[in-house]
């Protein structure tokens, strides 16, 4: 069971977003306890990993509803840690705004797209790992990412970032 703690945490943080690592850790802890207590009732109809990740996914969604309005979802700190090449202030400001818009648009996508994007771009998870965590075939994950990018394109264009 121990090998699932890190992926469960990553899945939770991918659903909650970059601001909510402490909440994701609480979720990972709750999921581990829940799995420990109900392991005997696991009927083996699905793989153990899928069962655990489904619990984590649902738990993270429940928590997200509660924490969504408690703190701003878009983190300036996250953007400030982004390496910025030495360019003029206008370019830096434009990049900063564009990245802020990207993070804000990601937060408006359907949950499963958000999770797939964060797992892929932020947490560096492989397609096969994302597929296991989201309990979906790899091709479906690729299609999630493709559709998420298309939606992001449209959303960014709506916000005036149409030079992409």
């Amino acid at each position: 069971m121990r090998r699932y703690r890190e992926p469960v945490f990553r899945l939770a943080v991918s659903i909650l977003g970059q601001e909510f690592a402490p909440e994701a850790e609480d979720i990972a802890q709750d999921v581990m306890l829940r799995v420990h207590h109900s392991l005997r009732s696991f009927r083996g109809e699905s793989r153990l990993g899928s069962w655990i990740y489904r619990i984590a996914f649902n738990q993270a969604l429940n928590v997200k509803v509660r924490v969504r309005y408690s703190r701003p979802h878009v983190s300036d700190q996250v953007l400030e840690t982004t390496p910025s090449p030495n360019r003029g202030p206008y370019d830096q400001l434009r990049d900063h705004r564009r990245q802020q818009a990207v993070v804000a648009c990601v937060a408006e996508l359907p949950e499963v797209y958000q999770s797939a994007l964060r797992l892929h771009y932020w947490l560096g998870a492989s397609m096969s790992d994302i597929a296991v965590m989201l309990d979906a075939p790899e091709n479906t994950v690729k299609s999630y990412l493709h559709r998420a990018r298309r939606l992001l394109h449209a959303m960014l264009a709506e916000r005036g970032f149409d030079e992409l």
Partner: protein
Amino acid sequence: MNSDERLDQLLRDAMAAAAPQLSPAFDARVMQRVRPHRLTLVGRMVIAVYTAVAAGMVVWLMRDLHMVSIAAAVGIGVPVAAAVSSYGRRLLR
């Protein structure tokens, strides 16, 4: 660079923050809640005294009862007590 590649790069830049890690105390916290709670020495002594007094009381209260009534009381009381304690333990989790 086409627009897909630019968006790809933009996503990578926007999510360039270091990935968070589980805190080192995570395992200890989980294990603390998974391990059965052991009673302290005082707690165990209280339980032992309570059990002895309760058993003495039961024997004294039932001293005039018929054997069949005692068997019926034990037959009903023991499963009920076991069920209640099991339910209580589950609630505590």
